[in-house]
């Protein structure tokens, strides 16, 4: 456990943290629960009571991170994870293993910061297990550079045990998206709930591929997949939201919206699959230009077309 920062890492730490200090001013003075990583170097790690954070660097330079949240505790302050690459060129591979104990409540805010990207790869493979009655939120916020090339490959498998609740939010806060390939599979058991939300703005030649599959294995399990993608220039989006209803009275919904400008191309594939006649799974998918009624309304309020589009897109991605 590294709860005191090495002096040689201090500058890297401060450079990374500066990107999120407006959201989390406490981060700069060390009141940071979680960990900060530049490339595969753990610059700082700290655990609030009830959480154990361990890591190891593997031979292939991958970083294995293991987070255990004790059973029956409630962590009121979000646990921050900050994975960045400050260099222009680099590859970061994180194997993340999170286990949330029975009836515990925890929120993670994970910042992925690649501000100077010329050629950056970020590969994240997560295994997340929520024990019965646990509640976990995972907010992944990406802060990228305005140019260069970024490859993002976040993938994972999540198990949500009986009565547990898993919520995941993925946002690109700034910069180019790059080549994004998100692939998550979530299994939900009796009376458990899962909510997945992804919001990405693609520009230039960004390629955004999202595949999220939710297996409603348990009785009375519920799952929602919500995706909002805005594509401009020559960007490409391929979104698959899949819900498979297996348990009695399980309910799922896929809600995908892609707004397309310029020469961008969008594809949406909502897949709903009821393996149990008592399961109900629904979907809605919309691809196209900006909603005309919204546009007209804002223009009738005195906004130019460009201003109105910015407001509508900003709302979708908020």
């Amino acid at each position: 456990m590294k709860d005191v920062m090495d002096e040689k890492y201090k500058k890297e730490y401060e450079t990374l943290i500066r990107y999120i200090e407006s959201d989390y001013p406490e981060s700069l003075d060390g009141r940071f629960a979680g960990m900060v990583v530049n490339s595969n170097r753990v610059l700082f790690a700290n655990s609030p009571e009830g959480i154990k954070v361990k890591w190891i660097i593997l031979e292939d330079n991958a970083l294995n991170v293991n987070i255990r949240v004790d059973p029956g505790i409630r962590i009121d302050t979000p646990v921050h994870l900050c994975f960045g690459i400050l260099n222009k060129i680099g590859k970061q591979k994180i194997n993340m293993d999170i286990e949330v104990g029975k009836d515990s409540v925890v929120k993670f805010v994970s910042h992925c910061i690649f501000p100077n990207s010329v050629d950056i790869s970020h590969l994240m493979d997560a295994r997340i297990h929520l024990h019965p009655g646990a509640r976990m939120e995972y907010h992944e916020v990406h802060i990228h550079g305005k140019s260069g090339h970024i490859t993002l490959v976040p993938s994972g498998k999540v198990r949500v045990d009986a009565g547990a609740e898993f919520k995941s939010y993925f946002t690109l806060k700034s910069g180019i998206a790059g080549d994004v390939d998100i692939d998550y599979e979530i299994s939900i058991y009796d009376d458990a709930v899962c909510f997945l939300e992804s919001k990405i703005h693609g520009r230039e030649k960004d390629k955004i591929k999202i595949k999220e599959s939710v297996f409603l294995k348990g009785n009375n399990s519920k799952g929602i997949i919500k995706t909002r993608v805005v594509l401009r220039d020559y960007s490409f989006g391929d979104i698959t939201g899949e819900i498979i209803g297996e348990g009695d009275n399980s309910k799922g919904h896929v809600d995908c919206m892609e707004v397309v400008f310029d020469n961008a191309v969008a594809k949406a594939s909502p897949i709903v699959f009821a393996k149990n006649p008592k399961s109900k799974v629904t979907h809605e998918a919309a691809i196209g230009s900006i909603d005309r009624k919204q546009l007209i309304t804002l223009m009738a309020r005195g906004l130019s077309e460009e201003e109105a589009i910015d407001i509508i897109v900003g709302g979708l991605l908020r």
Partner: protein
Amino acid sequence: MLSLKKFKVMRGGKEIVKGIDCDFHRGQIHVILGANGSGKTTMANGMIGIYPSQGKVILDGVDISDFTIYNRAKMGLTIAFQEPARFEGLTVKDYLLISSKDKSIHDVESALKMVGLPKHILYQEMDESLSGGERKRVELAAVYLMKPKYAILDEPDSGIDVRSFRKIADIILALRDSGAGVILITHSQEMISLGDVATIMADGRIVGRGDPTEIRELFLNSPCPI
């Protein structure tokens, strides 16, 4: 004055509004009556620049017939739609501040109070979480905050519960008293009574104009579907 001269609106290759001449005055509520399909909403959308039109729209002496929706709004002509849009990720506060000419939160709160909505609704998103009636009242508040010269209100009372009707009437009167010309499209007898003048439309034409009470009687008692 806002004038329509030989004003026509085509939809799907068909002439819906058929060469109307009509004047609307500031500080006056001008009620537009007519059966479903008579062309009231099409006329409103043509006036605002949503649908292409022929003839002229003259606002305080300026021919705005070729202006965009945005430029017409900048000139002081706006609309509260019959079915307001919903906006994901935009709060009521965001929307009202966008609409507000003075960008003042105090004005926003006052307008919200005028339409009988509680303050906490400011932080709600303009999506399905608002009822149709709430959404319509937010729309009226937005129009009021724009301080328009002319406001077209397309059935502002539809979907509004009886208890909230008085609030809707109050903001319409407040718009008029602020000097705006209000063009009020309605089927409601109570709304008609707010009018200073009324016009009745049938089949895309104006078939009567005058005192709102008399026009209402004409509308209710006509043997023809006007």
